[in-house]
């Protein structure tokens, strides 16, 4: 139903824009890739299902002309953050909103089917039926969704010009968002260190997390690969891996929109987003700020205030 409506909206906005960024089927149905639609014939390739995981908003800052983009609720926070940081001109973007009840994590599905080749996938609202050489298996989306879906607060996009389905209200409690962080905070310093040290030691420094991150604005000038300034070397040691992830986390302080792209693309299954979520939680406590929610907000790290309401730097 909504796929049909989405295609109609795309056809409607196409004449006014350079391109419409949407999803299409990849080499199999489990793998969905982006499509840049420039002509009406391409519209038929468009798909909408729970495999549409990629955050397409990430392409926006590099677009020179007016474009349209299809976003899920979580992806729309990227657009809001871009607006706050002045990285896009909202007048040059047509946002097509796609209310979403949850997506699947390809890695989790593959595990559920014991990494067998996928022959056919059928999508319904809350489950997927995967056909493999050894038979068919129906899996509930909630059992294979990325962690962000389990506490989703924005199933409907925050900003949009067109909505391709009826808006959905979140049924997840607001305090579930940082439940995983709170769990981590309950551990001792040594346990936390052991946890992160173990995770970051797996890093192969492929920089996939950085390249997929919508908020990593530095592109080819990333500090991880420069010699001036020479913050980290190319040596594949734990110290350097840790330093890279610390820099990545701090550069996203008060900016991470929790789209989960970093974890989705990580080949080593490192929970890259966890430290960023922890910082977001701190930012919320300190500055009462959540990234990518209100276009009128000013990111705390983008202003210079002599005094902050909750930081008593000046005791007078």
């Amino acid at each position: 139903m909504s796929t049909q409506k989405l295609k109609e909206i795309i056809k409607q906005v196409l004449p006014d824009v350079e391109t419409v960024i949407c999803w299409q089927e990849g080499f199999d149905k489990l793998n969905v890739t982006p499509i840049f639609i420039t002509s009406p014939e391409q519209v038929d390739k468009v798909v909408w299902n729970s495999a549409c995981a990629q955050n397409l908003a990430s392409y926006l800052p590099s677009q020179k002309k007016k474009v349209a983009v299809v976003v899920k609720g979580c992806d729309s926070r990227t657009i809001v953050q871009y607006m706050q940081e002045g990285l896009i001109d909202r007048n040059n973007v047509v946002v097509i909103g796609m209310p979403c009840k949850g997506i699947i994590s390809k890695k989790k599905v593959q595990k559920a089917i014991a990494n067998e080749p996928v022959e056919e996938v059928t999508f319904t609202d809350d489950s997927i039926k995967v056909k493999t050489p050894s038979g068919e298996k129906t899996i509930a989306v909630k059992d294979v969704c990325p962690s962000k879906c389990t506490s989703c607060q924005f199933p409907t996009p925050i900003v949009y010009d067109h909505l391709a389905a009826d808006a959905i209200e979140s049924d997840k409690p607001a305090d579930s968002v940082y439940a995983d962080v709170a769990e981590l905070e309950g551990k001792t310093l040594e346990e936390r260190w052991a946890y992160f040290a173990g995770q970051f030691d797996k890093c192969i420094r492929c920089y996939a997390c950085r390249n997929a991150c919508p908020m990593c604005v530095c592109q080819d000038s990333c500090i991880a690969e420069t010699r001036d300034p020479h913050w980290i070397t190319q040596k594949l040691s734990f110290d350097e891996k840790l330093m890279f992830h610390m820099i990545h986390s701090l550069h996203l302080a008060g900016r991470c929109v929790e789209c989960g792209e970093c974890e989705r693309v990580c080949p080593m299954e490192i929970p890259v987003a966890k430290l960023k979520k922890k910082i977001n939680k701190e930012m919320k406590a300190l500055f009462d700020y959540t990234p990518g929610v209100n276009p009128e907000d000013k990111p705390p790290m983008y202003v210079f205030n002599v005094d902050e309401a909750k930081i008593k730097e000046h005791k007078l």
Partner: protein
Amino acid sequence: MRVGVFICHCGSNIAGTVDVAKVAEEARKMPGVAYATAYMYTCSEPGQKEITDAIERDKLDRVVVAACSPRMHENTFRRTVMKAGLNRYFFEQANIREHVSWIGLDKELNTKKAIDEVRMAVEKVKRNKPLFSTSFKVNKRVLVLGGGVAGMQAAIDCADGGLEVIMVEKSPSIGGMMARLDKTFPTVDCSICILGPKMVDVAQHDLIKLHAYSEIAEIKGYVGNYQIKIRKKPTYVDWTKCTGCGLCMEKCPTKNAYDHFNFGAAPTRAINIPFPQAIPKKATIDPEFCRQFVKGKCGVCAKVCPTGAINYEMQEEIITEDVGAIITATGYGLMGIENFKEYGAGRYPDVITGIQYERFLNASGPTSGHIIRPSDHEEPKTIVFISCVGSRDKSLGVPYCSNFCCMYIAKQAILTKDHIPDSQSYVFYMDIRSPGKGYDEFTRRAQEEYGAKYIRGRVSRIYPKGKKMVVRGADTLLGTQVEIEADLVVLGNAVVSAEGAAQMAEKLHISYDTHGFYVESHPKLRPVETNTSGVYLAGACQGPKDIPASVGQGSAAAAKVLALFSKDMLESDPAIANVNINTCVGCLKCVKTCPFQAIVEDTLRNGKKVAKVIETVCAGCGVCTSTCPCGAIQLQHFTDNQLLAEVNAICQK
């Protein structure tokens, strides 16, 4: 690269707790070091000659001096290496005195730390780049903040020296605290009689422009070129028409407005002129009390004003002034009586503060110079003065002495006897502090000639008993409890920093201490300078000060400004931010976070958006460099790589 390292003994200051010979020996082993030596006083003439000789003899191209804080001698040594033909930024100073020898007694550990400090400086200096200053024109106008006696003295001295002066005063009249005083110690001469001529000088001087009832909205710029935005608060009276006749004040039906000038010693009218000698002598409406504002109708003053000066619709106005230097003379405040619970915390009308008592003594005060008890307006016969109320009390956050209370209490005791010959004054004191010229004689006179009874001890409690206030305290010299039934109690309450002092310091980019008093550049040798060049201090904004000291400091600040303005051009500091346009990704985070608005967006020929630093505005604070995600903006002389080299130098396993 050939680095020379010079370790200073600083007499025994450093050599006493640091093995300087060992530091020099270790320095010789550091990569790049061609020469290292220790010398008794490196800052002395022979010490500097040692450096210039070594530069020539050993072909040194970088110099490290391990000595005191760079705040002391960085300029000395920069000049030294410059004389020997090196760029002055090819010099680094390792602080092994304030950071090492003065803070630890363990010679072995100190020596180790001094070696680390030297290693850091060596690694840094090897990465230093030659930097060159440019020169810029000076705007020879000066801003004086505050129209108290210190500010007025500074303004008059600057103007007499031929400088244009902009004076900004937040209250409706200049005069400050001194204008409120009746007499001044130790000569007991009339305060306004000696201050009045100065106020008139300020008003009549062709070169002084006064903005009364105004505040600083914004300060932009740097030494030589400040842009000041001044917020002129609405007075609701057109001062170009107001003649200061005072008719409005007479007819105003609101009789309970708070009198800021009299520190609430008595109520005043909602429209008023603070005192007869006010400059400018113009009326101001207090919208907090004025019926026109509170109830929306009245208009009496508008009806009676003979010149039609009343304007209830007046809005605040922002005006801009360009100046080259700023003298800060924002004065002090007084600790509120509500902090003193043992003295009634303001609940007893007959427990008042020293400044309120001063207003009762003053002929132009609310009682025309008659001493009264606020509760029943009768003449008090027994008056108790309590000194150190709040001062020297760590529990109230005021560990310091308020400087002039001992003296004004002695003065008030003398004046009380003059006003009411059959009165008896008692003074509770901790110590009598009277070190000024003629001061101790004065406090003796209060006791010996005027019969004031001085009781050494603290007052534990004040409570009412009929019409009297019972003051219960200790006499520590006799070792007894004392109770005095007083008609009036006067508290010598603590001097604190002026309201909003910290915010003003942030606008000025100057340091302030934990009490809100401004920090001078050096407590002994640079008492009126701040660490921000072009900003000077005068009067009690720097710490509690009496009139002679404030006036002296006002003149001193003026002399500093006159010296600064004796040059037409100033040298810029090249240690400012610089954008690498090849790596800048144009996120413009730096533009948004720069506290000085020194960074703007620029478009390159290929259409790429990048950040651009306005060199003359950049203060070199470094906020942008910590903001830039890709390290494209770097603070010259403090680049990431220079700092990382220092970190690496001490973090080697």
